[in-house]
């Protein structure tokens, strides 16, 4: 039993998981029946389902971010890509003759995804072909992207009425929210794409030692392109979820600061910002730490404009608790205690 427990505590996801459990327990104490899930109209309802649904866009963006970070990069432009994707699909849908049709929704989504791929490829071009540092290269689109989204929406918040499009963010299939299903599917696909091929290992190789990777003949350029395109795609789909949920495209606020949440999810999940070995499962856990936290803040009735103050200490605590340094210090302290106990035993 204790051995199992120690193994669990040694795992790098132990603290993020404990954080989720503690937060949910606190919620349950503050508001009994917090955990209850009921069936209504064939859908699952409840706070836990909300946590999953709200965490879906962050998890999805975090997925792309994980691969980018593993390759020693970073993608700051994801928030702007969210805004552009939403702006494109909503503008298209509004511009159609009958904006409520399925075809309008489908074409809107398709154009947005095509644009997202182009934006990802642009980042990949700047980083791999021009050799610009990732943080600067993606900063370009982070800044310019919001302007592009403004151009597309002519500075307006575009409100749409299309039930098919609305379903992306708010619909259910097989009792589960569609965003959760999309995100799950994306992770399964990404898992297959990176681990059933050599992509994951090659991304890690580039992240761990770019010089040695080049001398081994790895085509770093191609792989770096791929990770930024995947990141752009993930951000686009997340953008569709976010705008669909509120049936409106707000170029200023859609996906604002979501790049920071995504990076945080990746770090909470145990992937190092220095690149190299990564964990997709870790990123899922990290994203749900964040969405549980947000839900908890609302549940406690803390005003929305103060919630960041409440979230920060929890994030700091988790990051500190799972850090290598903390583990070393704790280890040291334990051994010292054991030694002093041993020396206290009379000879």
């Amino acid at each position, binding site marked *: 039993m204790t051995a199992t427990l120690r193994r669990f505590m040694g795992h790098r996801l132990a603290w993020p998981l404990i954080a989720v459990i503690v937060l949910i327990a606190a919620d349950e104490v503050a508001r009994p029946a917090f955990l209850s899930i009921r069936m209504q109209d064939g859908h699952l309802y409840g706070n836990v389902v909300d946590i999953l649904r709200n965490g879906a866009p962050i998890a999805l963006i975090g997925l792309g971010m994980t691969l980018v970070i593993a390759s020693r990069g970073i993608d700051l432009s994801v928030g702007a890509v969210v805004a552009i994707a939403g702006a494109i699909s909503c503008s298209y849908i509004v511009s159609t003759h009958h904006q409520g049709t399925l075809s309008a929704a489908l074409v809107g989504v398709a154009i947005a995804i095509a644009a997202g791929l182009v934006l990802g490829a642009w980042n990949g071009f700047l980083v791999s072909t021009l050799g610009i540092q990732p943080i600067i290269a993606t900063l370009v689109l982070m800044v310019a992207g919001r302007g592009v989204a403004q151009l597309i929406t002519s500075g307006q918040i575009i409100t749409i009425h299309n039930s098919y499009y609305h379903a992306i963010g708010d619909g259910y299939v097989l009792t589960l929210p569609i965003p959760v299903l999309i995100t799950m599917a994306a992770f399964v696909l990404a898992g297959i794409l990176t681990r*059933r*091929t*050599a*992509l994951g*290992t*090659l991304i*890690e*190789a580039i992240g*761990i*030692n770019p*010089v*040695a*990777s*080049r*001398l*081994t*003949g*790895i*085509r770093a350029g*191609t*792989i770096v392109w*791929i990770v930024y395109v995947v990141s752009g795609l993930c951000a686009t789909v997340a953008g569709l979820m976010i705008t669909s949920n509120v049936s409106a495209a707000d170029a200023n606020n859609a996906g604002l600061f979501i790049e920071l949440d995504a990076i945080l999810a990746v770090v909470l999940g145990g992937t190092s910002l220095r690149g*190299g*070995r990564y964990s997709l499962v870790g990123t899922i856990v990290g994203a749900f730490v964040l969405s549980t936290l947000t839900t908890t803040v609302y549940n406690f009735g803390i005003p929305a404009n103060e919630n960041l103050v409440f979230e920060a200490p929890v994030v700091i605590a988790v990051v500190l608790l799972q850090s290598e340094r903390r583990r*070393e210090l704790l*280890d*040291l302290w334990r*051994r010292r205690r054991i030694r002093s106990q041993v020396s206290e035993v009379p000879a």
Partner: protein
Amino acid sequence: MPPVVEMADVSVEFPGVKALDAVSFRLFPGEVHALLGENGAGKSTLIKALTGVYGTVTGTITVFGQERQFQTPAQAQAAGISTVYQEISLCPNLTVEENILLGREPRKRGHIDWPEVRRRARKQLVQLHLDQLDPGSVLATHSVAIQQLVAIARSMEIESRVLILDEPTSSLDADEVRHLFRVIRDLRERGQAILFVSHFLDQVYEISDRMTVLRNGKLVGEFLTGELPRMSLITKMIGKELVELEELDHSPARKVAAAGGPEPLLRTEGLGRDGSVSQVDLTIHAGQVVGLAGLLGSGRTETARLLFGADAADQGTIRLRGEVLRLRSPRAAIEHGIGYCSEDRKEEGLIADLSVRDNLLMAMQASRGWARRIPLREQERLTADLIEALDVRPANPDVPIRNLSGGNQQKVLVARWLVMSPSLVILDEPTRGIDIAAKAQIQKLVNRLAEGGMSIVFISSELEEVLRLSDRIAVFRDRRMIAEMGNEGTSQDDIMSVIAGVAS
């Protein structure tokens, strides 16, 4: 006189490996104590246990009569134990004097007292016979040897009484070694305790007073240098009789490939690159070993990088089987069947966090592209075959390669190319910093591969090794290839005089 450092029953354990197993060790003032053992024997582990790199170890460590357990290298340094590592741990972008007094700059009214800094730096440098060195020059502009001496100057400045030198001579030339040894002898006179780790047995016998031998993390024994003949030392280090080494020494020279045979595998004419190396005219036949000899920085590595496309040549031509090659990237060279093991294993070879298997198959996987992963069964077969063929230890393909000793890492890096069945492999200092047994294994491997028809470019600072393995030897000086000679009838002295520029 009591020892300044005494370690008793010290053990260090990593998951699955006992890196140091109840080892005892003593270091006396005024002696040079050599720490010997094969790679992976526990030499570095012992140093790291002593200097607080590992924080917690079992057993007792007594320093200057007090039981101590250093948690960080800084604590060890504060207690008077300085370490000069194989890789210099100074700041290359700062000046010599800044490095010597870093963190301890004398101050005057809140400001750094630069004249005093210079005075103290110069005092240390003079003691190390570096009177000519400008204390205001940037450290990176000096050779590794000078940088090492500056590191020693720093440890003198902080008044260390124990100086640990980890492989200090591995990248020095003969003159630099002589200078370093002079400094070491001076320090010994002054009562310093010096722990010296080296793979060069000649140097160990020249400089050390006492030796401690480790094998597989265990203590073999402590000996006075004068009382332990070299052959028994080697036997103690490798733990088996010397058959293997003898065999290599007396193995008849490999049948030299017919130099006048069909067209050569590779021929370069006037190959060069601005600011790097020039006028390289090499001819390499199939099954031939061509040695590149010369001092460090003479153009050997630069030539290797041109042949592999790591740097693009801007002068001359490379012909492979008669066809002109334009190598713009390593990848292009790999596609033509060329492989390259860099002299800098850590920075240019290892992908440290990945497993032995991933590292071993990396070149093959890279050439297949990301989408066509090598099937798992194939991966296992290839890895198992090569681990066995090259005697990689531990024979576990799933451990991260960083946990292997230098010699075993080197074997994996060579194996990385062997799975590709290349026609030419360039080995740059493949035996540097690795133990005798692994060295013998690699030398034998070179012979075996050449017999199998592979061509090899063999680069080494050890002339004896170059001479033993190569069919032809290209000599470099001042970034130019200056001579090519056959093996037959050539002696080390002949090569030396060409390198030195003395007509022979």
